[in-house]
């Protein structure tokens, strides 16, 4: 059995049984999982975790699941010492957490693995989600592995290239005509009408916990310590809050020392409601209309925006917004220095990191981890202009004529 004890309202503190439920009945605020940390502390150790499977389920004792898990090989992705990029940015201890290398090429596999495991525990036959790419692919893949039916709702303007990466797992793929807001509204109604495991609605408290494994891994890969600085992307803000929670939990459990990490969140300037709130000193995150090529983090009304804002402020961190031009440069810089092709959201992180270092917010000697959460092959159109090959005839002369000086 897991060490989860209840669902708890993040605003008013009311508790609910561990069921498929995401909002407090009284104040409509989000629920999150409570744990019995005293019992958990007795069960976990660095040695036990290190001896676990080489995937995210080595942290099973810290997650709210009870039985067999739905696993397609997610997690324990590389933490790369990024010396080349570090030299470029003038950072002595820079690491890249490369979460492109998950089975469906994004960090969403972590959250979905937990959510679908719970969906099966709760007895759902059908799971569903609404997504423009990464989440949809991950839900469809995990549902296939779990022998469950999945409904995936996508806005009609999703790039064709992304559809194949979703459809290959054979979900019921539903393309919704209408605006982004229309799709949101429809899915909210669907979730109320049908008894499905809606991955990021009624299963959201469980789904959220999967994100913690990113932070656990980084701490373990650093030799059981927390970094000085974290730079991560923020869409809904959930990942950002859970990286912080994961470090806090490891410290509470005695697995790492005190956490003094500064958390920096990055968003695309065309959709930066959390950054706007941070910079204006506001307490509430006001929704915006997304307009950026970083679509995987283009969430105008972020569900965890308020909590991400609070984390950034509490830990002495910050927030910065990146234009589409800057994020493209960020994608190219990461690829050219470290050989990692990140999606547009990764470009936001690298460009954000560059800004934070250049402005002196992140210091040269601080151990910094930048989180790359999705692979670039999904958003190739963002950097299509890099393709300009030499065109030659199939002769040595032709080659040496155009490239001789460079060979």
């Amino acid at each position, binding site marked *: 059995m897991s060490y989860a004890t209840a669902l708890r309202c993040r*605003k008013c503190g009311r508790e609910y049984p561990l069921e498929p439920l995401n909002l407090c009945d009284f104040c*409509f605020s989000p629920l999150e999982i409570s744990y019995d940390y005293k019992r958990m502390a007795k069960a976990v150790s660095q040695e036990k975790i290190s001896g676990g499977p080489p995937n995210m389920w080595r942290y099973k004792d810290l997650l709210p699941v009870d039985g067999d898990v739905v696993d397609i090989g997610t997690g324990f992705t590389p933490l790369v010492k990024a010396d080349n990029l570090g030299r470029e940015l003038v950072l002595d201890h820079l690491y890249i957490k490369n979460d492109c290398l998950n089975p469906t090429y994004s960090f969403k596999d972590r959250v979905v693995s937990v959510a679908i495991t719970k969906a099966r525990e709760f007895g759902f036959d059908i799971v569903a989600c*609404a997504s423009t790419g*990464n989440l949809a692919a991950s839900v469809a893949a995990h549902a296939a592995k779990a022998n469950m039916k999945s409904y995936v709702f996508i806005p009609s303007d999703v790039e064709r290239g992304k559809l194949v990466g979703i459809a290959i797992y054979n979900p019921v793929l539903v393309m919704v005509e209408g605006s982004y807001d229309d799709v949101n509204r429809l899915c909210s109604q669907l979730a109320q009408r049908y008894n499905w495991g809606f991955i990021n*609605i009624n299963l959201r408290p469980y789904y959220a916990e999967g994100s913690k494994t990113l932070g656990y891994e980084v701490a373990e890969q650093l030799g059981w310590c927390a970094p000085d600085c974290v730079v991560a992307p923020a869409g809904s803000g959930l990942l950002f809050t859970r990286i912080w929670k994961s470090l806090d939990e490891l410290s509470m459990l005695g697995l790492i020392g005190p956490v003094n990490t500064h958390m920096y969140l990055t968003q695309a300037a065309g959709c930066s409601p959390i950054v706007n709130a941070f910079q204006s000193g506001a307490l509430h995150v006001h929704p915006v209309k997304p307009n950026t090529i970083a679509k995987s983090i283009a*969430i105008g009304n*972020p569900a965890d925006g308020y909590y991400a804002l609070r984390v950034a402020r509490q830990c002495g961190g910050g927030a910065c917004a990146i234009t589409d031009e800057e994020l493209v440069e960020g994608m190219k810089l990461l690829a050219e220095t470290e050989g990692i092709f990140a999606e547009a959201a990764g470009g936001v992180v690298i460009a954000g990191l560059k800004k934070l270092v250049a402005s002196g917010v992140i210091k040269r000697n601080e151990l910094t981890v930048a989180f790359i959460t*999705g692979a670039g092959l999904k958003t190739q159109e963002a950097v299509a202009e890099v393709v300009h090959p030499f065109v030659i005839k199939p002769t040595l002369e032709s080659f040496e004529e155009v490239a001789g000086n460079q060979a």
Partner: protein
Amino acid sequence: MVKRRVMFTFPPELIKEPIIYNLGQQFKVVTNIRRADVNGDRGWVVLELEGEGKDIERGIAWVSSKGVRVDPVVGDIVEG
């Protein structure tokens, strides 16, 4: 009768208008406020609407047409 949980975000020019009162009066929708934050230039209200499905739909369309942003309480459901 159905229930719908929504968040209204008001722009500055609508802060003084009794939008929620009129929603209840004109569309036979019962409004039940659970959380809110309204100040001089902006405001948001989280509330539950109860009524006939078509009345709620018409009511939400009217609120939107007035310039109020209407979102699901859970935030955006469509994710990347």
